[in-house]
């Protein structure tokens, strides 16, 4: 079921690449149309899975990634339509394609532990997924900021210079994405903590619940992520850390997010199944 969105994201990715290379407005419109279509199909897929398992599918890593990709696509579409700036699509699409390949190739089975079946848990996961999607956008924006900055600084006004938005635009978009992401990350982490406390009281001998502490790598890295982005938000507001420093911070933050999301989820975590 997740293959069709993957194919459509790939098609949109090709159109964005053509638009980026040729700068033809027509190619840009085709790209956006394809991406909207992909997001709609993806919405349908996730809707079907929701009806099938009677909750939004993210209780296993593969399906959670699919939901994450869907949210990222929606966030990007929001950013594109509000800023009328399509140049970032070519950087976002490979990320969508790469991540969507995981659920497309190994669908996984949505088998939910009754312990998890709580509204707190759904708020926890969906907030975090949305936060990660925003950080993904911010990370890409940060990297493009650095590329653009270097080109102008070195007076090498080449391929990217003519195609990327201005430094100011990239910075404003980055700030917006980080702020929204930080908000959802905070909600996600706080709700997670509250829910753990409640669940412990309800099911005292669940091993997963017992393992939930800062010693758990997943939780530790999530708190680290929160610290990094809190610093980014604070530094921008208080110390005026904009531009290149903010760009590097958001790239670093997203590297940690990816680390948490992929290798740690699959290999080392003890209390979280993803």
């Amino acid at each position, binding site marked *: 079921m997740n293959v069709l969105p993957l194919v459509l994201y790939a098609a949109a990715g090709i159109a964005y690449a053509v638009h980026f290379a040729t700068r033809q407005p027509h190619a840009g419109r085709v790209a956006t149309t394809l991406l909207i279509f992909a997001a709609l199909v993806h919405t349908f897929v996730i809707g079907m899975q929701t009806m099938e398992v009677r909750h939004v599918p993210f209780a296993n890593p593969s399906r959670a990634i699919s939901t994450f990709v869907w949210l990222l696509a929606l966030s990007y579409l929001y950013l594109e339509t509000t800023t009328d700036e399509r140049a970032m699509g070519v950087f976002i699409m490979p990320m969508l394609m790469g991540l969507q390949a995981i659920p497309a190739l190994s669908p996984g089975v949505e088998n939910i532990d009754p312990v998890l079946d709580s509204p707190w848990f759904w708020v926890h996961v969906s907030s975090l997924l949305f936060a990660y999607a925003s950080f993904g956008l911010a990370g890409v924006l940060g990297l493009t900021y650095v590329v*653009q900055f270097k080109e102008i600084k070195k007076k090498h006004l080449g391929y990217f*210079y003519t195609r990327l938005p*201005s*430094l*100011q*635009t990239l910075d404003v978009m980055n700030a917006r994405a980080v702020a929204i992401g930080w908000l959802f990350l905070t909600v996600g982490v706080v709700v997670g903590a509250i829910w753990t406390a409640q669940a412990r009281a309800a099911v005292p001998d669940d091993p997963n619940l017992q393992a939930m502490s800062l010693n758990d790598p997943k939780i530790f890295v999530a708190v680290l992520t929160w610290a990094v982005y809190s610093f980014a938000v604070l530094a921008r507001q208080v110390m*005026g*850390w904009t*531009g290149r420093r903010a760009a590097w911070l958001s790239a670093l933050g997203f590297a940690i997010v990816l680390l948490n999301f992929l290798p740690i989820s699959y290999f080392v975590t003890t209390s979280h199944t993803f």
Partner: protein
Amino acid sequence: MHLLLLGVSHRTAPVDLRERLDFSSRDVGTAVESLATRSSATESVVLSTCNRSEIYVASAEPPRAREELIAFLSDYHQLTREAFLPHLFTHEDTPAAHHLFRVAAGLDSLVIGEPQILGQVKDAFQAAAERRCTGPLLSKTFHWAFGVGKRVRTETALGEGAVSVSFAAVALARKIFGRLEGRRVLVVGAGEIGALTAQHLRSHGVAEIAITNRTAAHADALASQVAGHTVAWDDMAHAMARADIVVTATGSQRPIITRADVEAVTGRKRIDPLFIIDIAVPRDVDPAVGEIEQVFLYNVDDLQGIVHENLARRGAEIARAEAIVAEELARFTSWHRSRRAIPTVVALRQRFDDIRRAELRRLDAKLGGLTPEARARIDEVTRLIVEKLLLEPTEQLKALPDEETQAAYTEAVNRLFRLSEDAAPPGAGDNESAPFTKPRTG
């Protein structure tokens, strides 16, 4: 009806002659009006910019119109014809349209792809249209040219990239700061390029332009010119701390802004970029300033380099733009050719209608007993028959592929229906039937 073009441009005439033949200093509308009254041409447009003075007319007799236009140029500009004849170019029909299309596309400009020319072509047409000097041919031709200009602009990169130092500086500022509204500019030195750059920045909506100069009077003069304010020379550091963009253009022989100066105002705290444009030769800003993290330093050579690159990039787009022009020209030519059949078509229709009316008159006595409604019906039916008979020949005549074939067919139709001997009376149809009032031989 033929399209005729007479003119001089930067390719054919030196600047002093172009200046003397310039229409734009006086009112172009008056010029086109006085031209229209003095020539036999039925439509005229005068296009005059600093690089060209061109007259486009629609005329049934191009050689005669050409002589009239030369006389007009000579009288209007008080020049002997010998002074400009060697520099004058003349094009007729397809080459004339080709020229106009290339002009509108920016291909004939001094700076290839410059965007102003399309607006100037539109203004020239507008001025003529307002004075009722245009008609079907020039209207169609000019609107076609507007379309060509628009296509070239949207489908090629011919007009992209700044091609002057001050525009390149503004383009860079926009790449750094996005919109320039609300940005603060400091101009150091009150020279000409500094003023030009300040003006470009002002037109992009910067909030504040501060000007500082060793001689305060010059700074005052520039400040009033670009709606800025002056800053004392000794307060330069303070003004720089507030600025987003610094333009330096003094005549100083040694750098006036050192790395220490900039570090003192940017320090470690400043994170917002500072864009320094050093257009002075020799340079006003120590190159080491560019090593400061948040400073973008561009000197005049850097900007010149950008300009050269952009020009080269435009050069690469010329072929694509010319292809669009050629494609549109082919379509225009076939449209224009189809119009040449119009006089014959008009004469043919006239002849058929004359026959129809003559027959109806002959039968008048026999039809006398009919009711007015029935007579009207007969009139209607006969008219429809004539129209239907002529429909296909008319279309075929208009669609003939080349000039030679068209001439042969027109000749044949003229002979078969003896159109030339009693062609349409003056005033019937449009004035394009005029050539056929002359007796034909052969």
